[in-house]
């Protein structure tokens, strides 16, 4: 009973702080509104998206220009409605982004805090491995793995991306943990015999949570970026699963002038991609300030 009251108070305080931050920052407010509209559009749009949108081929109505036969933005080269394809692609990209970001956050918080807390040889080995991995060309390695796999499902894509791109996040959490470990409250908890996992998750974690939130947002936007970049080059998702990147692939192969005359093929996709990634990063910064009031702009 007591716990519930406390939790609720924290939640409402967060929302209040969040709202106050938005009122101070017009750009963040705009980004939030655009992002909410986009999310609603994608979620409600799901109802109208046919399940076979990726695999259908309707040559008779392919490549229609906008505003013909009731297709607001025309049709794709397989004859599917462009707006519906865009909704399906955006939701696929979002699922991939959230999947990767959630996995990476879980990995980085767990390992980063353990490495930072215990230090010693575990820390040494982990840091050498992470430093080594950070200089490796991640994008090229991912492109090779994706191209040898010849088309992946969304879930295997999420898994590969998460497994190969956690090192910078773990390093960040480790650094944060290191700066907390020597604080008095941790020392006091250690001396009074609190088990290490309790110190980590009830003591240190709340103190680094504001950075975890903004890091989550950055990772989310970054994962969407990596996924769309690679699928744009034509590596990654299997045929029939579209993402914002595969929708832009149409342009790299076709004759270059069509890029400019057929604006509807790329401007809407580009706008959705910009709003998504930029909005997520801005929102992450606002959430960080709302949790950590010391960083709030006055």
């Amino acid at each position: 009973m007591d716990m519930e009251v406390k939790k609720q108070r924290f939640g409402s305080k967060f929302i209040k702080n969040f709202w106050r931050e938005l009122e101070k920052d017009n750009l963040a407010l705009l980004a939030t509104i655009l992002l909410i509209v986009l999310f609603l559009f994608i979620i409600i749009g799901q109802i109208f998206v046919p399940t076979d949108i990726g695999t259908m081929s309707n040559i008779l109505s392919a490549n229609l220009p906008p505003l013909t036969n009731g297709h607001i933005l025309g049709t794709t080269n397989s004859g599917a409605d462009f707006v519906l394809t865009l909704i399906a692609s955006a939701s696929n990209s979002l699922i991939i982004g959230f999947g990767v970001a959630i996995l990476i956050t879980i990995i980085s918080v767990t390992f980063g805090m353990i490495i930072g807390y215990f230090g010693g040889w575990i820390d040494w080995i982990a840091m050498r491995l992470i430093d080594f991995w950070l200089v490796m060309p991640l994008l090229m390695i991912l492109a090779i793995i994706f191209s040898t796999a010849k088309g992946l499902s969304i879930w295997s894509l999420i898994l590969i991306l998460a497994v190969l791109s956690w090192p910078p996040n773990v390093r960040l959490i480790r650094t944060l943990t290191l700066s907390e470990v020597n604080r008095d409250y941790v020392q006091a908890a250690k001396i009074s015999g609190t088990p290490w996992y309790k110190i980590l998750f009830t003591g240190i974690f709340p103190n680094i949570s504001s950075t975890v939130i903004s890091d989550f947002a950055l990772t989310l936007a970054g994962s969407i970026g990596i996924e769309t970049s690679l699928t744009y080059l034509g590596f990654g998702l299997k045929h029939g699963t579209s993402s914002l990147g595969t929708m832009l692939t149409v342009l790299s192969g076709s004759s270059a002038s069509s890029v400019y005359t057929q604006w509807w093929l790329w401007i809407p996709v580009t706008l959705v991609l910009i709003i998504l990634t930029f909005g997520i990063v801005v929102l992450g910064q606002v959430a960080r300030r709302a949790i950590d009031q010391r960083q709030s702009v006055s």
Partner: protein
Amino acid sequence: MWRTILRRVLIMIPQLILVSILIFMLAQLMPGDPFYGSLNPNSDPATIARMRHAAGLDLPWYQQYVKWVGNVLHGDLGTSYVVNKGWTVTRIIGQRIWPTLSMGIIAAVLTYVLSISQALLAARNENKIIDRILIVWNTMTSAVPSFVFYFVMMVLFVYIIPIFPSSGTGIDDTQSFTTNFFSNLRYAFLPALTIALFSTNSIFQYLRSNLLDQQAQDYVRTARAKGVQIKDVFRKHILRNAFLPIASGIGYSITGILGGAIFAETVFGYPGLGALFVQALSGRDYTVITALMLLQGVLALLGGLLSDIISAWVDPRVRVK
């Protein structure tokens, strides 16, 4: 100083071995073998087996690895089977490396010029409208995948306002060096400028907060109290201190040349190493892919080495005793 460099070079040896093992593993992961491209349904299985045996592909993996490393050390990277059929990989890379290098160098210089000037402008006008705009701009360019912006730039400056050529490198073997140089400049400038324009974020954020930190230091207050003009304090003290950490990043811009080129070259149709990588990957030309990965791995290690040397050179505190 020399001991620092020596120590750092020695660290590179295990790193290089790790990189080569990693690349060898990736190469083994790729289905098929180097003869994959030269086969047809009528190939005689016995001939294939003989070719495989001659190339040592029936050996256990560790012997293959040693053989591969030996070949690489002798400059033998194999033969391309798809992109330029029959050419040695060294010849292809030798031809393609110049456009990428010229674009990469222009891009790196422009990135530094743009991000440093943006950071100076923002730090001198802290919390004013120009500062806010620059922060938002840099947040946006780092959040949105860069190929989207490349696209917009290409449409703008190749089709809508046609001041730059659309595709190619402007390099032709029949032309003299100077003609090649200037014609390549015309082709390389737009991709290079575009890369620079949208990759200012990390240097900008870092330098801006460094400048603001330094402005709040005691020595600035002392200088101001003595009556030194703020612009002199800025030029002589703040800038020097704030630039130190930035200088070490120069090494890493070498690392980024090839990786950054992949998207720019693909979007702008500029046939350098980045475009070669995509071409080889789509055509499954494994010898070329392996060679490019190796090149990138070596570049990454060299970039790290250069960065560490520069930071030890500009900041004596970093040097090991």
